[in-house]
Each structure stands twice: as C-alpha cells, then as structure tokens.
C-alpha cells in the first residue's frame, strides 16, 4: 500500500540523480586531463551556484503551491547593482548592502505575493511584470557596470573554508579542497527549507494548496495567507540568493543574471517538482542546480562551444523533463482510471 504518487515523484528524483551522476562521471572520464576529476571541480559546482541554490529553494516553495515566479533573475540583477552602487558609489558598508538586498527581495515577494494571493491574479503575469520592472529599475540605478572592491564584502566572498581533504597535483603538491562561506549559507538554507516543508504546518499547507487549493480552504486552511507567505519567503530567499550571487560575481550590471529564472525553474522541474504543484521538494532542486552546473562546466571545459549552448542544453533538458512529467503523470492517471472501472 505504498503510495504511488510519492513513488512517482521519487522516480523523477531518482532519474535526476542518476542523470547527474552519469553526466558527472562521463565528464570525469572525458575531461580527466582538464581537471574534471578533481574534488575541487565538484565543490566548484556549489561555489558558482550557491546563489542559484537559494533562489531555487524559494522558487520551489511557490511552485509547490502551484504558482511560479519568473522575476528572480531580474531581481538578482537589481540586488547586485543596488549592492554594488551602495558600496562603491555611496560608500556604504557591506552590511547595509546585505540588508538592502534582503529588503528588496522581500519587497518583491510581498507585493507579488499580495497580488497573486489576495487579488488572485495569475502569478505568471504578475512576476513577468516584476521581471521587467526589476530589470528596468536596474538600469535606473546604473547603466554602467559596477565592480565591487569593498574590503569586507570581498572578505565575505573569498574567505576559503578549507576542507579536510584534497588532492595531489601533477607536481606532487598537496592542494586542499575549499569552499566559500556562500556555500555554507546556501546549504544551510536548503536544509532549513527542507525541514520546514516536511515538519511544519506551513510546509504541509503549501503541498495541500498545490494539491487542491479549494479543498485546502474548505479544510480550514488560510490559503491566501499561506500563499502570500510562500511568495514573501520566496522573495526573501531571492534577496539572500541574489546577494550570494553578487558575492560570487562581485559586480552589478543591467544584463546580469539574464535567464536565471529559467535556470531556477529548470532546476526545480528537473528535481521533480511538478509544474502543476503539490509535489516536489528542495533536495531535488539541489540536484537540478548541480545538473545545470555540470552542463556549464562540461561546455566551458570543452572550450570550443559557445556559451549559448549551456542555455540551449538546459532548455532541452527542461523540455525532456516536462515531457517526462507529462508522460508519468498520464500513465498514473490512466492506472487510476482503470482501477476505478
């Protein structure tokens, strides 16, 4: 009597993990001479995608409720540019930039969340408007690229946390593996969100809303409030993720993080979160992010392919998983129907 739906989403997650391993191992075999097999290469996946992991977590929350947020990429650009502007052009501290980032994220979350949950406007339209708004605001803040040279900020960004393992390079020198603080924050956030989804009433309410919002109302849940909270939290996480992204890029400009929303949505979908809501989780999203990172590393390591291929490959993969979801979903419902008869 083990649940079919669970195993369905479990199946999707399993496919994702296997795919990730397959891609990574084949990368190690093909590009072993280019350092793909080194442990640091693996850790770099986390380092360069720390922001995306956090943003992906936020997006997963709203996707579980059956919603979506495509403003995350532009909001990230806005956060980076505002942070850079505050530190470089206004001479403010890194702490105030962090606070501003979280505030901007939260503000977007709150406004979009209000419009989506209390006025019941399609989340796509609202966050599409949010996406254009944020991108435009970035240009209002600064049309020039601003590099960040703030000391504290760079210290946050580049303090190496040495791990108790490493590898020996060709010259026989032992090199320790390391990560940046951003990775710790990202993984901590991931664990917290995962626990929240599993062990709090709010977390379960999100699943209920995604499963059948009307039922959730009838069962006494405050659906509007919970949905609103999901978007607000998503906004906050975008703020945090955006700042982590900024720590990684150390710059702000208008065209930054273009298509990040696509990366985040792909990561969630590839990780087994259903576009229709009600099923999914952030652990899957992590693997989705790792797959995206692996594709990017493979294409960069290969060297001759244009960077556009990353986006195209990821789109193709997203497409594949969407089709997979549709197929697995329809097989499931067919089974159910057969059983009814």
């Amino acid at each position, binding site marked *: 009597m083990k649940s079919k739906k669970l195993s369905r989403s479990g199946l999707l997650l399993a496919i994702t993990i296997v795919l990730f391993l397959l891609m990574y191992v084949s990368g190690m075999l093909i590009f072993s001479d280019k350092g793909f097999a080194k442990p640091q290469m693996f850790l770099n996946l986390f380092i360069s995608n720390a922001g995306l992991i956090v943003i992906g977590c936020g997006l997963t929350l709203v996707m579980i409720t059956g919603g979506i947020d495509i403003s995350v990429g532009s909001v990230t650009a806005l956060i980076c540019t505002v942070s850079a502007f505050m530190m470089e052009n206004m001479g403010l501290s890194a702490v105030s930039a962090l606070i501003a980032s979280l505030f901007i994220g939260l503000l977007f979350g709150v406004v979009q969340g209000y419009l989506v949950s209390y006025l019941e406007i399609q989340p796509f339209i609202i966050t599409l408007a949010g996406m254009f708004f944020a991108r435009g605001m970035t240009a209002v803040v600064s049309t020039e690229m601003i590099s960040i040279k703030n000391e504290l900020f760079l210290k946050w960004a580049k303090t190496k946390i040495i791990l108790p393992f490493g590898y020996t390079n060709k010259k026989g020198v032992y090199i320790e593996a390391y990560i940046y603080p951003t990775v710790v924050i990202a993984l901590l956030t991931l664990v917290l969100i995962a626990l929240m989804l*599993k*062990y709090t009433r709010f977390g379960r*309410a999100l699943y*209920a809303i995604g499963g059948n919002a009307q039922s959730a109302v009838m069962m006494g849940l405050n659906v509007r409030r919970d949905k609103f909270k999901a978007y607000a939290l998503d906004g906050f996480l975008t703020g945090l993720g955006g700042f982590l992204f900024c720590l990684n890029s150390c710059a702000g400009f208008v065209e930054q993080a273009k298509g990040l929303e696509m990366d985040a949505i792909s990561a969630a979908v590839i990780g087994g979160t259903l576009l229709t809501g009600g*099923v999914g989780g952030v652990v899957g999203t992590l693997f989705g992010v790792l797959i995206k990172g692996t594709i990017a590393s493979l294409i960069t390591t290969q060297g001759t392919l244009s960077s556009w291929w990353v986006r195209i490959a990821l789109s193709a993969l997203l497409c594949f998983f969407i089709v997979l979801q549709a197929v697995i979903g329809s097989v499931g419902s067919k089974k159910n129907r057969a059983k009814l008869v």
Partner: protein
Amino acid sequence: MSQPVILTMKQISKAFPGVQALNQVDFCLRQGEIHALMGENGAGKSTLIKVLTGVYQMDQGAVWLEDRPVQIRSPQEALSLGISTVYQEVNLCPNLTVAENLYLGREPVKHGRIDWKESIRRAGALLNKLSIAVSPSAMLDECSLALQQMIAIARAVDMNCKILILDEPTSSLDDEEVAQLFALMRQLKQAGVGMIFVTHFLEQVYEISDRITVLRNGERVGEYDTSALPRLQLVAKMMGKDFNDLAVIQAAPKGQVDSTSPPVIEARGLGHSGTIKPFDLTIHKGEVVGLTGLLGSGRSETVRTIYGADRPDQGSLKVNGRPVKISQPLDAMKLGMAYLPEDRKKEGIIPELSVRENIILALQAKRGLFHLMSRKEMEEAADRYIELLQIKTPSRETPVKSLSGGNQQKVIIGRWLLTNPDYLILDEPTRGIDIGTKTEIQKLVLELAGQGKAITFISSEIEEMLRTCSRMAVLRDGAMVGELAGDQLTQAQIMQTIAGGKTVQEDK
C-alpha cells in the same frame, strides 16, 4: 422529539443581484437528528448552507448555536464553531496521504515539529473507530470516492463537530457505498451529532432522515416529521403544485420500435481497453435503450466508446447497416450521433459563451471551419430551441454560465437536437436538476423516440429508466452482463441482474 435544539436559524434573508435567494427562512436542528433539506434547484438550499458555513454573509436574520447567538464570517469560523461540511465533490487533497488529510492544519506537533508517527497512529485509531477500512498512509487519490467522502466525515468528526452538513454526498456513490455511508451516519447520530442532509434522492431521505425541511423559491414551505409526510406530498410541496406529470409519463406509449430497417447502431465486440470490455449492442429506430449498472460499471464508458470520445481499440460498429470507423467525436456526429455528456459543467457547457453560441456550436463544428453559419441562421436556431425547450434565459446572448443547471442542460439538449441526430446519447441528463425539468426531459425523450430517433438513456434513478426505456442493458465491472426487455423490466429484476453476478464472481 425530546432532544435539545442545537442550531436555530431565524428569518434568514439573502439577496443576489436580481434574485432573492432566501426570504426570511427559519431552520432548526436538534441534537442527534438527521434533518433532510429538500427543494428544487434554485429553492435556496445551497444558499442557506453557504450562509451557515460562512461562505456567504446573510443580509438579515440570526443564527443561534444552542442558546448562543453567533456570527459566522468565514468557513474557518464555522469550523471552529463545530460546523463541518462534506460536499459532493470531495474537498480533500489528492496529493497527500489519508492521515495528512485527516490532520491537515492541526497536525500533532512535538518539539516544534510535526510528529508523523503520532499522526499515523491517531489516524489509524480514528479510522478504526468509525470502521473505515483504509490505511492511514495510503495516498488519497488511491481511495474510492466513497472512501474519500468517509475520510472527509472522519475529519469532521475528529474536529468535534456538532453539526455536520452533508451536501449531496451520495450523488456519485453506488448503493453499497451509500449503505456504508448511512451506517457511518447512524453511528454519528448515536454520538449526538446533528446532521443536515441535502440530496435529490427521495428514497434516501426516507431511509435515513428524521425530519424534513422543504424550501421553495427561497422560502420555507414547512418542517415535517419524515414518517408523517408521504412521498407524493413531499414532491408536491417541493414542486408547489399538484404533481400529475409523472402519471402522464407512465401512461404515455413507449416509442414504436422499427425493427424492419437495419439497426441504427450495431456494435459487435466493441471495446476500449482499460475502461470497457468488448460488448454487443443493437439499437433500432424509435427505441429507447437504457444502460444501467452501478457507478463505475462502465455505463458512460460504453457510450463514450460508441461516440468516439474514447477511441475504440477493438470490435466493429455498424451505423444504419454500414460498417464505420469512428476515431473522434466529429466522425460520430457526421454519422448522425449526438452525445450529452455526464458532467455538464466540465464537458457540456462552454460557460463564457452565449446561449446562442452554445446552441449552434455542434452544428457549426459539423459544418466545418470554412462554412460559418450566418448570424441570422444562428439567431433563428437559438430562438427556436429556447422556445421549444422553454429555456429560461434573459436573452439568447446571455452567457450560459449564468443559467440554472436545468436550463444549461436544456441548452445542451438544444445544441444536439439542432444537429438533427438519428441517434441520441443522453448520459445522466437529469442529474442535479430539479424535478420539474427532469419530468420535461423524460417526456422529451419519449417524444423524440416517437419521431423515430434511436436513444440511449443513462440514469442513476432506475424508476426514471423504467418510465422511459423499452429495453435495458446491464453493466457490471466494465462489462455488459445482460439485457432486459418487456416483462423483465421491473425494479427487482434489474437490481438482481446488477447485483446477481457478484456472488458468481466471489465463487471464482
């Protein structure tokens, strides 16, 4: 009745633009009674319930729980006051487990986190107490509709509800499931829960309810002890007039079956794997053939296969003696078929489009993309069927969604009559609509058969089928198991055929 009154609603009024939905309605419910709320569509039953559950705010009136006046502003508030509702369409979450559905929003929490073990344990105990046979860790969408309904009731019971509203809970259940539900209701009655039972099924009212309140046109007609109100009088009170139409129908001659020309429909071994096993079915001109069986026995699936809504994957079909291949509904329509689907809202009406567009849609689709009907032609067609079927609509340009259920159904019937079909499939045309319209539809079926059309009629109400059908095919578990005609067409015989096989199967 010596039981104390637990709910009093006094002088409740509620108006919507253009309609006085409730006009000074009184209602009272005692502890441990099952109180049937009866009335035709538009009588105000659902409005009254929505006022009680906080979905609507009343314009005037007062509500007392026991002797305490209360204000109910939202469904949540109703729940916290001990008023729970179980709807026809189950309001649970299919993507969660049974236990989660039972405790959603009030999960047992230990050390600040949900205690899943405790949740499963409690759910098991609760389901056991109410004799509901399902595992707490099963996914809800794996449970039958009846089970889901009972789980919804279990949830209400566990939330200490004192008043349980059952809004058409039995519409999609078969007899056995209804019996299970009633057993559960009796158990709750013993526990002192007051229940408001809304249904269209008269038999069920007489089987289970203690008292009946009848509403008509937003006003209360009266409150009666069930045992003191004969069935015919109940119907009369609901209709507000002497009720002779049923008698008229009973006397009406059934269609003249023309068995000389080749049958309109002749299915041989037609089937759709997964939904309906191969079946044979022959229907002649002027014949009304009923399909009966329990819910989920394959009644709808049979006609869907003939019509091409589900593409048949085996067997053959002859229409008017000629072998045909139907792969989509349009093919069937071109062969003179028409299909009124079971689910009016989801598969019948196009809600935003006008009555006119809804009526001409099938004919237009049949003519094709490049042969647009002229505006005048459309209007004439719409007006003709609005008049013929007495569709109550402000104008032919009114969006069909703002019509009542019965009138929507008439629009769809009009849509198909306009295509002048030889073979008409009516799948539950009378479900969820008022008795007056039900009778009209039954009369219409006989009239159409009289004109020489072949008709397949499906209904959950056997009496209705007995009145209209000249022959009935019986289905069970996705297979056609027998045909009855002539003297065999009695309620007892049909019941036996529907149920009969069960013992045979168990023997296997």
